[in-house]
């Protein structure tokens, strides 16, 4: 499968021999962008002291090591006049469709995660990670309820000297619509379809948490673990991310940032879709 490409005149995505996205071309520039699913193991504490609480509904508190979901991904490619799709199966609880519509300048990632297995009695916090060679120098941007973008810096707070004991959780920020990073030449942004947590823990990388299943309460008040038990096997979550990539600055066309704002508006205020049974009507009668 090495070298499979889907795309259109605006954006092209190339997949490597593992079945992972590894290169994106858009607006005249090309960068390595590898997308993968990983998970953190949730920290377990005795909840007796503040420093020793479990990861739970109120606090994201993983162990700092990250685990790969899969190293070999099964993929299928579907091409047509309106949309090109790559269907990826990572394992029996993570899969994804990556698609590019004919007239859109972004790529859509529709992920399906769950039920997260906990047979090993370890809580898991699943992330999607986009790793690029953009030299972001520890700087990334997250939105403020879809309005102003706020500059974030790894292991840093603007108004005091911070010494983070938990390097992952301490660098996570809330996203309601977008997370982005850039260097002098290229900019990468991911739009989310719901409020999620996200960060950039390495130069050029963006990660977003998509699903969690935890086995311990964090003792902040809910008094139960974040482990949906009603159906006996945990929840399955499905959602979308939208990847936008392009030059940081542009003299001749709208900047990548400007396009992000338009697409953000359309994606978060989509058309309302109503369906009606028309069995009793021919087209002419309906017209």
């Amino acid at each position, binding site marked *: 499968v090495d070298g499979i490409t889907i795309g259109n005149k605006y954006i092209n995505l190339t997949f490597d021999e593992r079945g992972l996205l590894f290169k994106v071309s858009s607006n005249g520039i090309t960068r390595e962008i590898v997308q993968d699913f990983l998970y953190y193991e949730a920290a377990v504490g005795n909840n007796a002291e503040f420093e020793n609480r479990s990861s739970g509904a109120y606090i994201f508190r993983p162990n700092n090591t990250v685990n790969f979901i899969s190293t070999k991904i099964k993929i299928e490619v579907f091409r047509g006049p309106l949309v090109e799709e790559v269907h990826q199966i990572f394992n029996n609880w993570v899969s994804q469709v990556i698609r590019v519509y004919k007239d859109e300048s972004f790529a859509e990632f529709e992920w399906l995660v769950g039920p997260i297995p906990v047979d090993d009695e370890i809580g898991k916090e699943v992330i999607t990670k986009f790793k690029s060679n953009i030299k972001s120098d520890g700087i990334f941007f997250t939105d403020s309820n879809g309005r102003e973008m706020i500059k974030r810096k790894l292991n840093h707070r603007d108004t005091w000297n911070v010494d983070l004991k938990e390097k992952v959780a301490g660098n996570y920020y809330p996203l309601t619509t977008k997370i982005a990073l850039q260097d002098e030449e290229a900019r990468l942004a991911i739009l989310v379809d719901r409020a999620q947590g996200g960060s950039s823990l390495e130069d050029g990388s963006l990660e977003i948490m998509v699903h969690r299943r935890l086995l311990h309460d964090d003792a902040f008040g*809910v008094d139960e673990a974040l482990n949906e*038990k009603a159906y006996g096997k945990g929840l399955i979550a499905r959602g979308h991310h939208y990847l936008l990539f392009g030059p940081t600055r542009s003299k001749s066309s709208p900047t990548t940032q400007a396009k992000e704002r338009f697409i953000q508006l359309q994606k978060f*205020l989509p058309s309302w879709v109503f369906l009606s*049974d*028309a069995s009793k009507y021919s087209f*002419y009668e309906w017209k």
Partner: protein
Amino acid sequence: EPHLTFLRETMGIMQHHDAVTGTEKEQVAYDYAKRVDVGIRACRSNARAVLNRIVTGKIIEEYFSHSAKTNYNFEFANCLLRNISVCEVSENNDNFTVTLYNPIAHSVFEYIRIPVPSKNYVVLDYRGIQVPSQIVPIPSPIKELDFRSSNSSYELVFLASELPPMGYKSYYISTLAHNDLVPEVMMVMDTPVN
């Protein structure tokens, strides 16, 4: 008004910090989901069984019936599961219509995905002109864990172009087996007033 008020009150409850952040207990989360569902159905059509004291949700239905100046009975379906590729109307009817309301104050193009059980469909716009469409399989990675209770194996994709600002556009979709319903001569109608 009572239909809207039920949804307003529900949205008020949804402002509680536990509902916003997801730190509510599991049973409370299901109760929140139920309230939202009831509220939305109350503001849609065919909400007969929602609450005994609310007879039928008519808000959107009345808007369209009034706006279109027609006696056509808009029985809009509750397709809140379309995000997981489930829709009772498109899965169980050979002919159905899709009406799209654009809430943005400028016209938009949008690719629409409708879950369907077979591969052969024709999409006509309101003038009777065929709209290019494509069928894409719905991935079902794990059969034994397939969570969708649905007949649909495919999604019908088409581009809804130039949806008017804060206005609507309708499409007529039928299976090819019923293509006798597709007009042979495509008549162009007067452009409706947006």
